[in-house]
């Protein structure tokens, strides 16, 4: 035996190991002790290493990170340079994993960003964080710490705080904002035309943290956890009717029940879960026994997305929850694409008429409009709302019948399960 057999994944957190032990942010000395030096020597081979590891983006789309890196490197080579944006904006109201990660292990994320910058030929990096959380100051301190200790690959790292609109965390919107424009999506992908016109790698904070570990420990280590198609661990923000609402790290391939168990299990009987985010999918409780991977859930029109999982108690009204979220999502459009800024309010209104108004004609109209609005925007915002509402129609089909028949629904008067933030409103602006 020339190579020792690989040990299997030990179940311990990878990204949040230090946080789990100390419950406070890791400073640079602790980061260095835990992870060793920045492996700048790996940068020339990074695209190959990350591709072999099978890392996929944890911002929601689960796009292969190796392919994104190689596309930016290729376009950057012809365009005379590239740019790197760390997307830690996380405007998903039910998500907290990127905020926690940037707080707990900022240097792991920044190492990943610097390595990615070396790999794609970028000299500048911007870390975009959620406005008003104190994260900008914390990241600023971490960047100063790196400079003081001469840590890193010598890339210039800045911090930006895009507006808190839902669409402002979409990759082209973040690149647009970092380049001095409004935090609104654009029609061209960032990897071709991003910050100041440069090919830009916009990568989720968690993705880059995984990348920083892969560069040190290699693809085989990464693949010890997770599935063949989606290796590694992933962060899940678990909310709703569970005993311990928090962020948890599990191997990809964990079932819905595994994830709920990490959160102390259901606090009351469940009827469904919302998975992925507010542009995600409702899943009936019987789907909780499936592995929560993009592949396993594809036929249910669902994906782990950005790792949001909200448990909906049996006593709540899934339709009323969906109306509130759909209406909020409709208010979060950028007023750029007609099918989105007209279609989303119309869809939310149709669902409200079904839920509250016993309007049978609204159901046919809603089904038609879901088909019309899907994939008709410059970004994926309308598609997400279509998926949310379409899966609600499937998972809460019996409730629709009862609502239209005028039978009472006790859940209508329960306090909301899904949080809908007050801001942003018009005062937020787009810069």
């Amino acid at each position: 035996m020339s190579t020792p057999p690989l040990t299997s994944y030990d179940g311990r957190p990878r990204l949040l190991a230090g946080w789990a032990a100390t419950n406070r942010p890791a400073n640079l000395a602790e980061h260095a002790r835990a992870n060793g030096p920045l492996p700048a020597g790996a940068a020339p081979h990074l695209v190959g290493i990350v591709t072999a590891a099978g890392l996929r983006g944890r911002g929601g789309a689960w796009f292969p990170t190796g392919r994104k890196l190689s596309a930016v490197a290729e376009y950057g080579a012809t365009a005379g340079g590239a740019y790197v944006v760390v997307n830690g904006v996380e405007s998903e109201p039910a998500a907290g994993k990127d905020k926690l990660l940037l707080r707990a292990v900022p240097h792991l994320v920044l190492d990943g960003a610097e390595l990615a910058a070396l790999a794609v030929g970028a000299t500048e990096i911007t870390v975009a964080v959620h406005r008003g959380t104190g994260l900008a100051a914390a990241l600023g301190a971490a960047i100063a710490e790196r400079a003081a200790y001469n840590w890193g690959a010598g890339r210039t790292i800045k911090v930006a705080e895009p507006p808190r609109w839902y669409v402002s965390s979409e990759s082209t919107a973040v690149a647009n904002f970092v380049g001095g424009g409004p935090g609104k999506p654009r029609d061209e992908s960032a990897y071709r035309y991003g910050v100041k016109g440069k090919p830009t790698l916009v990568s989720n904070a968690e993705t880059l943290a995984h990348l920083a570990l892969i560069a040190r420990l290699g693809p085989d280590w990464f693949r010890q956890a997770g599935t063949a198609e989606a290796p590694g661990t992933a962060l899940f923000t678990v909310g709703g009717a569970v005993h311990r609402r928090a962020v948890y790290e599990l191997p990809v391939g964990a079932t819905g029940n595994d994830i709920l168990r990490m959160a102390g299990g259901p606090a009351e009987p469940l009827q469904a879960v919302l998975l992925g985010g507010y542009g995600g999918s409702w899943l009936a409780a019987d789907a909780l026994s499936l592995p929560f991977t993009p592949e396993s859930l594809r036929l249910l029109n669902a994906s782990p997305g950005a790792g949001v999982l909200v448990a909906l108690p049996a006593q709540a009204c899934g339709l009323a929850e969906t109306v509130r979220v759909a209406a909020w999502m409709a208010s979060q459009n950028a007023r750029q694409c007609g099918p989105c800024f007209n279609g989303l309010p119309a869809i939310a209104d149709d669902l409200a008429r079904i839920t509250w108004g016993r309007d049978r004609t609204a159901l046919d109209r809603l089904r038609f409009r879901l088909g019309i609005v899907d994939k008709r925007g410059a970004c994926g915002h309308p598609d997400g709302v279509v998926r949310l509402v379409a899966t609600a129609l499937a998972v809460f089909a019996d409730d629709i019948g009862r609502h239209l028949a005028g039978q009472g629904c006790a859940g209508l008067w329960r306090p909301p399960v899904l949080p809908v933030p007050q801001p942003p409103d018009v005062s937020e602006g787009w810069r």
Partner: protein
Amino acid sequence: MTETIKVNMIACDGHGVCAELVPELIRLDEWGYPILAPSPVPPYLLKHARRAVTLCPKLALRLEPDRPR
């Protein structure tokens, strides 16, 4: 190589000129925004499609070459 008609929905203001020029490829939704045929433009409609691209008041339409498969 075949081409498919695409729209920059951010630039589009819903004038509707395109649907008048090539109704075979473009219809309008209830708010007046174009819904495009997803398939390549057939040769006999190429001239009309090009006219729609040229005459769009917002220059929001384009013909994109299809990738060979």
